[in-house]
């Protein structure tokens, strides 16, 4: 069964397309990496799935996943780290689906928060202010919040960029746990070795679909070359593009 279906989707900002005519199907329960060169539209694609931006044309269908059943970790988050809030309180916001804006936090909820903090290895730091955390610890906090969101679809935008190896390894365990629990996980990633080692499925894009399938079949030298060319072609202004065409010819 498909979790997300892209039907000739064009996504972008101010009518400038970052993704063009993409058609693909991400299966339910799959663990998919999205790879591609810089400017390939990877983050835009996640924003499209999340519903933050609406396709300029085409359709994105999320099967049996209403908007709020998506847990999304953006790359450039909007968090004000100087805000006075403790790890525990911050993580508890992942319970929004069940407690909402006004609901009380029950004993059971507190247990869940504590479990999530344990799962990411931050036990003992519950009362620490988020302003006093390192980058890696903050990423663990964000994963704890994702855990509490208990979503059937998890979207991660470069979750391991600028994070130390130990943290990456710990957080990968959580990603695998989501996979084992049957959740659909889609992650934008830059580290190709990490993708080869841990992600069974890969979607390679360069404004357009390059290839989608088993990681070993997708992550080939030819595909990377093709992706780079596709991206360069659409980044260059028309004259430069023509010029290149002549040189190539």
């Amino acid at each position: 069964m498909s979790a997300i279906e892209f039907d000739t989707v064009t996504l972008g900002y101010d009518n400038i397309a970052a993704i063009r005519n993409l058609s693909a199907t991400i299966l339910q329960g799959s663990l998919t990496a999205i790879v591609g060169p810089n400017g390939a539209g990877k983050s835009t694609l996640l924003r499209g799935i999340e519903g933050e931006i609406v396709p300029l044309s085409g359709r994105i269908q999320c099967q049996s996943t209403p908007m709020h059943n998506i847990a999304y970790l953006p790359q450039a988050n909007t968090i004000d780290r100087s805000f006075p809030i403790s790890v525990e309180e911050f993580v508890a916001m992942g319970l929004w689906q069940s407690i909402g804006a006004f609901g009380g936090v029950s004993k059971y909820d507190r247990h869940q928060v504590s479990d999530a903090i344990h799962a990411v290895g931050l036990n003992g730091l519950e009362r620490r202010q988020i302003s006093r955390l390192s980058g890696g610890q903050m990423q663990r906090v964000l994963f704890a919040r994702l855990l509490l969101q208990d979503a059937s679809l998890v979207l991660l935008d470069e979750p391991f960029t600028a994070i130390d190896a130990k943290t990456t390894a710990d957080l990968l365990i959580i990603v695998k746990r989501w996979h084992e629990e049957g959740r659909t996980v889609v992650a934008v990633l830059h580290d190709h070795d990490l993708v080869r080692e841990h992600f069974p499925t890969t979607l390679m894009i360069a404004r357009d679909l390059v290839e989608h399938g088993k990681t070993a079949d997708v992550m080939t030298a030819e595909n990377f070359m093709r992706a780079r060319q596709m991206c360069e072609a659409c980044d260059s202004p028309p004259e430069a593009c023509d010029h290149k065409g002549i040189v190539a010819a």
Partner: protein
Amino acid sequence: MIWDFLIAPFAEFGFMRRALIGSLAICIGSVPVGVFLLLRRMSLTGDAMAHAILPGAAIGFLISGLSVMAMTIGGILAGLLVALLAGLVTRGTALKEDASLAAFYLISLAFGVSLIAMNGSTVDVFHVLFGSVLALNTAALVLLATISSMTLVALAIFYRPLALECVDPGFLRSVSGFSAYTHFAFLALVVLNLVAGFQALGTLMSVGIMIVPAAAARLWSTAITGMILTAVIFAFASCIAGLLLSFHVSVPTGPAIIISAGAIYVVSVVFGSEGGLISSRFLQPQQS
């Protein structure tokens, strides 16, 4: 001696007692709002809104004289109108919120000053700009207390979305549709409290009692509750000191209160235990 200086003014004069009660009532509502303004990095938005309410208050004044109710309703309407227009322009055009808000509050302020200048005397302008905490009547006190109570209730209800909107607005947008409402409801609270404040402190100084104690409190506490409590205590102290200063030295009361708050702020900047000059220089490890 101490009695004469600290207690006698309040014991002997009814207008000083009413001023004290009125300014304390303002603190209870305004200060928590100010703490959130500060945490949302909207301190200057508060300032802009304070100017924006002027024409509304002026129109109220022109229609029914020095009526607290008329000026309050006028001020609230003008403030909400500016907030709404600025919000619409921000969403619909290339302008960012600071630019659209600045444009509207300046237009509003110019209208307000013109209205008062054309139709009143300089005394009236001074009344609106600097307030008259020493002339608060019972109706005004009831109004101030009502606004403070409403503010506390509203903050208690919207506490969670408001805090989340401060710390991670992107996350709030992704989990609920509250984001836009929270922002506007909060601006409405700001307007309401500024209007309450300007009865006593004037439009120019009412934002001072919101921001200055909150900024000082930030340097002593890292938890929101702690910040709010500290800020309220600072604001109370400023009001008492300001009223006494104004009584003994005959400084205008509004400015005297804000100068007192300013003194607390300066002390906090130097000695504050959470990021004051001394603590961040000597007590915490330096980051190179």
